């Protein structure tokens, strides 16, 4: 069943060639003058865009800056209307956006939840029923009855986001602004999205974060200059987009030839295992883990380098390890090969991480790059105590005079 349709939608904006004209936009006289002279130019942010989204499907929308992605989002959310064409939406549509900018500093957290909840289209009864859950999700706890001007900026953002996370829509719009709060809160948001997805919520996800799009979306649209450049299975569209990106930057041209035409090897899968060899995504700080990078080597690669990355779910690099610094020389023969990374203790904080692997030749030029692949999102839960950003195996000693006491950490 079709949930959402874009039927030959175009959106036109007016831009003014002369920036001083633009500045005096709000003056009546200039406006009248311009009416007669007609200095404005038209700019089509979207041109004849048509697509449909089925119920329960997750659609990704990617593209360069200015391609028209956010215009699609604005149109879907009815913040603005199309200049031509028609958008049909079946059911309740909400956007998971951070709304704390609408908070009134003098009002309490609770009052602001009512205010912003109703701005987002919730009824007072709905808010009343969900209030506990919203407060719980945001983690502001006892501060809910304090004026929000006394909140830390993190609490502010988390509370704003928690309201939006409780909308129960049929169609959910997701945006880059997902990058809210600390890693633990981000993991909670990802879980919430995964839950909505499982419940059959249709999702439209606009993002630059290809890893996140790949893990969430079945189908993806690539928007270029206001038109659909490619649509189809997410990994295919992402491949096209990466080609497009490389073509845009002159430096990447060599890599484009390497990766798209004559890849010497490809990464088939990136798998994560626990200490007992089970393929899992659940860990705790201090657990042992290993990661296997399955390679399909087409041509012999001398002096290859395999790397694993731990990214935040928003694609920021947390840390990476490489055979270049940590292992011996690696020559790969054609055929299937597995390169394993293992560690005795995960020293990451409590959060979700996306693992990623890459293979390249030794050397830092982009032409040495062979292949790169995203793996699963792993969850690192509470294990060894960590209150900062990482855990490290450690010892304690008390040094008094000659007597040296030893305290071994458990």
């Amino acid at each position, binding site marked *: 069943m079709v949930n959402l349709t874009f039927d030959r939608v175009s959106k036109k*904006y007016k831009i003014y060639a002369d920036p001083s004209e633009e500045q005096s936009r709000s003056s009546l006289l200039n406006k009248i003058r311009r009416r007669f002279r007609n200095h404005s130019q038209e700019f089509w942010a979207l041109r004849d865009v048509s697509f449909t989204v089925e119920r329960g499907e997750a659609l990704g929308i990617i593209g360069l800056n200015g391609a028209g992605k956010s215009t699609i989002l604005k149109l879907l959310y009815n913040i603005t209307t199309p*200049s031509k064409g028609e*958008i049909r*939406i079946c059911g309740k549509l909400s*956007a998971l956006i951070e*709304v704390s*900018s*609408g908070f009134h500093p003098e009002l309490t957290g609770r009052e602001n939840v009512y205010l912003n909840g*109703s701005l987002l*289209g919730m009824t007072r009864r709905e808010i009343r029923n969900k209030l506990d859950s919203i407060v719980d999700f945001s983690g502001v706890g006892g501060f809910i009855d304090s004026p929000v001007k006394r909140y830390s900026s993190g609490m502010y953002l988390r509370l704003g986001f928690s309201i939006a996370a409780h909308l129960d829509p049929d169609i959910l719009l997701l945006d880059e602004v997902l990058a809210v709060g600390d890693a633990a809160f981000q993991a909670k948001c990802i879980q919430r999205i995964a839950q909505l997805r499982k419940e059959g919520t249709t999702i439209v996800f606009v993002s630059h974060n290809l890893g996140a799009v790949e893990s969430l979306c079945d189908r993806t649209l690539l928007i270029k200059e206001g038109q659909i450049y490619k649509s189809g299975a997410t990994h295919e569209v992402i491949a096209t987009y990466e080609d497009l990106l490389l073509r845009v930057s002159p430096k990447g041209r060599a890599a484009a030839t390497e990766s798209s035409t004559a890849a010497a090897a490809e990464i088939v899968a990136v798998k994560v295992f626990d200490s007992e060899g089970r393929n899992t995504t659940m860990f705790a700080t201090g657990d042992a883990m290993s990661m296997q990078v399955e390679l399909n080597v087409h041509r012999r690669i001398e002096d290859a380098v395999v790397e694993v990355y731990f990214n935040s779910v928003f694609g920021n690099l947390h840390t990476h390890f490489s055979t270049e610094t940590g292992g011996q020389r690696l020559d790969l023969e054609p055929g299937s090969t597995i390169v394993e990374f293992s560690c005795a203790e995960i020293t990451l904080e409590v959060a979700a991480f996306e693992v990623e692997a890459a293979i390249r030749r030794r050397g830092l030029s982009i032409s040495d790059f062979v292949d790169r692949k995203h793996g699963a999102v792993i969850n690192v839960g509470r294990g060894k105590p960590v209150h900062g950003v990482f855990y490290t195996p450690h010892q304690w000693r008390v040094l008094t005079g000659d007597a040296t006491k030893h305290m071994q950490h458990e």
Partner: protein
Amino acid sequence: MTPRVSIITAPSLSTTKLIHDLGKLVRYRDLLYTLSVHRIKVRYKQSVLGGLWAILQPVSLMLMFTFIFSFVAKIPSDGAPYAIFVYTALLPWNYFSSSVSNATGSLVNHAQFVTKVYFPREILPATYVIASLFDFVVASVVLVGLMMYYGVPLTIHALYVVPIVLILTCFALAMSLFLSATQVRFRDIGVAVPLLLQLWLFATPVIYPLSSVPERFRSIYMLNPMVGVIENFRQVTLRGAEPDYSTLTLAAVVSVVLLCLSYVYFKHLESTMADII
């Protein structure tokens, strides 16, 4: 349960779209309520006198006008004590002028909402009208006090206050919708409104009685809906008499027609507001 289907198209003027818009407004009624309560709460938060300001504003104007126009300028007041004469007009006038002056900037001042979230935009100016209505009700207490002090009897005709205030609300809403939507395009409106309201005060029988307006200007003068509203408000409270049905009907017709027109105008501009705000 069949899901609601909403269709978003290019801005157009059709009856179905208008009915659709009104339906949306009904669905968002809780937002109207919450935002209006919020306006009232926030207005007097962190002020010592709080809600008393709702009374102080019209009362201080009354005292000033009484001094200037009664003691100094000796303006007639149809025989009634000037203080109560001017207060019966200041009360509805203040409701109107504070609605319009606060609502005019409502969209521009909430640009962060308008560009981020969808909701029927008319709710923003409407909440200012509702907040002013609340102040009006609070300040009415003073009118009752003045009537008792001057021994003005309260008659059954005072009940006409309800339809009169309803007409006034329609008119205040009409002006608020028109001015706030226009302000999004032309910021000149924000500067012009205080001046407009000042001039308007003198074109309305607030500080002088209707009887002192020359007969030959009356027909044009009466087109200002505030004339019918204020004159009849005075009629049913101060004079305890029946309202003048012809002027009241005229004010009602003008107000309702203007409200319909400015709602259509507002909804037409609404669709592209976020692009130009």
